[in-house]
């Protein structure tokens, strides 16, 4: 119940802001037409607004939400993915991937050693496969020795 109510409020806000912005679009160069850049967004805004009011009035039963510890866990997973992205170019594909895959395996319940083995293995296999077989160049980063591409 509460989940859908919060969703309803958030969507209603979104609909209003989205519609408001559409109404504020400057008139396009060359004069206005029957359907301007704002028409379609305005229609969407009205439909979303009405739907969100329905959700507020008749919310569904709630799904069970994870407790704080699990939310932290899921947040951590997203963080790991973000760190992977951050490391990718400066540090290179192989270290970034090893870190990401190992940590993810570990968080999914694997023991540390097999996790690291999976991490290193998948990093090297994917790197070799992409760089040499498929000829898509992944960032080598710190591992780039000498003048190799």
């Amino acid at each position, binding site marked *: 119940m509460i989940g859908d109510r919060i969703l309803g409020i958030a969507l209603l806000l979104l609909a209003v802001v989205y519609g408001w912005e559409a109404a504020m679009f400057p008139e396009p160069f060359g004069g206005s037409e029957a359907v301007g850049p704002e028409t379609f967004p305005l229609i969407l805004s009205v439909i979303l607004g009405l739907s969100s009011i329905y959700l507020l009035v008749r919310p569904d039963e709630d799904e069970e939400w994870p407790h704080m510890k699990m939310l932290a866990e*899921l947040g951590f997973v997203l963080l790991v993915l973000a760190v992977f992205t951050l490391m990718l170019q400066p540090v290179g594909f192989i270290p970034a991937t090893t870190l990401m895959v190992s940590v993810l395996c570990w*968080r999914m319940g694997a023991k540390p050693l097999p996790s690291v083995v999976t991490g290193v293995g998948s990093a090297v296999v994917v790197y070799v496969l992409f760089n040499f077989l498929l000829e*898509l160049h992944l960032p080598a980063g710190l591992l780039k020795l000498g003048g190799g591409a």
Partner: protein
Amino acid sequence: METLNFLLQGFAVALTPENLMFAAIGAILGTIIGALPGLGPANGVAILIPLAFSLGLPASSALILLTSVYAGAMYGGRISSILLNIPGDEPAMMTCLDGYPMALKGKAAEALAISAIASFIGSLLATVGLVILAPVLAKFALRFGPAEYFALFTLAFATLGGITGKNQVKTVVAACLGLMIATIGVDITTGNQRYTYDILELYEGVDFIIAIVGLFAISELLFFIEMHAGEGFKKVALNKLKLSMKDIIQVLPTSLRGSILGFIAGVLPGAGASLGSFLSYTMEKKVVGKNGTFGEGDPRGVAAPEAGNNAAANGALVPMLTLGVPGSGTTAVLLAMLISLNIQPGPMLFTQNAELVWGVIAALFVGNLILLLLNIPMIGIFVKLLSIPPKYLMPVVTLVASVGIFAISNSPLDLYFMIGFGLLGYLLRKLHIPLVPVILGMLLGPEMEKSLRHALTISDGDWTILWSSGLSVGIWVVAITGLVLPYIVGPVLRRRMAAAQDKEHSIVD
């Protein structure tokens, strides 16, 4: 005659060694993707799109690869249904009913073989149906003007929840979200900036491939972690195959009936593969299962839903290819592929890109045969793959998905977007907002707005043009029925599906 000529040309495309190889690779990958629980066909195809894209494959090869993945995933779905009692995807649910009891009786290999044969018959007949029906529908669709298309796009959203959809308003919300994301960027007609907030990266809009991979693959990873599903599932051991000609003949009539029902369910908007397999199972139970052997490991109970869901999967390609309106999640993802290859599906596809379309259709025939040949002798290998625990598999899948996204334009920003969409997908799924309409909204948004514009330009601003022809009125009526009908028949159908499942569980326990 004309159709046959085109089809022969199609085979010429599909049978080049290169494309044959892509079909085989796709078939193998697809079977694996379909077999692994939690990695449905939509997910699998989504992960492979950026790869096919960044490899710079020619359009026909990319499409052949991905349609083979699609067909393979439908085959693969049954493996986990039969051995684990967990459907690999939703349409494979009904296969559990008789497949798992058969496996428990020590006939797992037979159940797998029969389901492979039934899948083959289903796909084959449905592809024949596609060959016959698609050109007719494409010709008919040439009469559609922009007003009809606008109505048709609305119809696609209205029926997407399916006849068994729980909360139609949530489908509408999802569609709106997708359409709203599609409006981000520079407006094509006027050049106005919309919702870009002067961020350069948003000028071209949000790339739907990134959204698809984030919404499906990353949210799936989060769900696996939340459910502590890393250890995998207990599966039934595989026995040695003992299948006689008689066993195959016994399931033939069932497979034929299931195929026809499934194909019809696949073509119709809002029905889809789940309903296809449900309908063919329940009909078979009424026709041949009077002595109560269904639900206890009757081979015909395995054949019926498998023929049904494979036929429906191919049937769903009819509206996708001819009208550009997909009826299911996976066909929506295939549509994404077409659009990113700069191919606009719709009636013109059959005239402008005849070679491509018929090549793909021919590849369906070829892929299907490859799948049958793969699935009977090599089933042991696919079964072994099922024993890889998700705790190792999911991180590697996530890696492949991320690499694919990164390879599109070597931009870390795309990856941040993907992660963001992953979080969004998780939240939406938790709130029971379906993801497929979001994707479809992003895909169809630009075309939908364009057809609205064209229609109103023609009518000089008169909005009644949207419902002024008989054809468009008809489409609107179907759309509204599709939106309202689930409220009336949905509860009944859902109760029946649940009852069938409960009965199954009481037998197994």
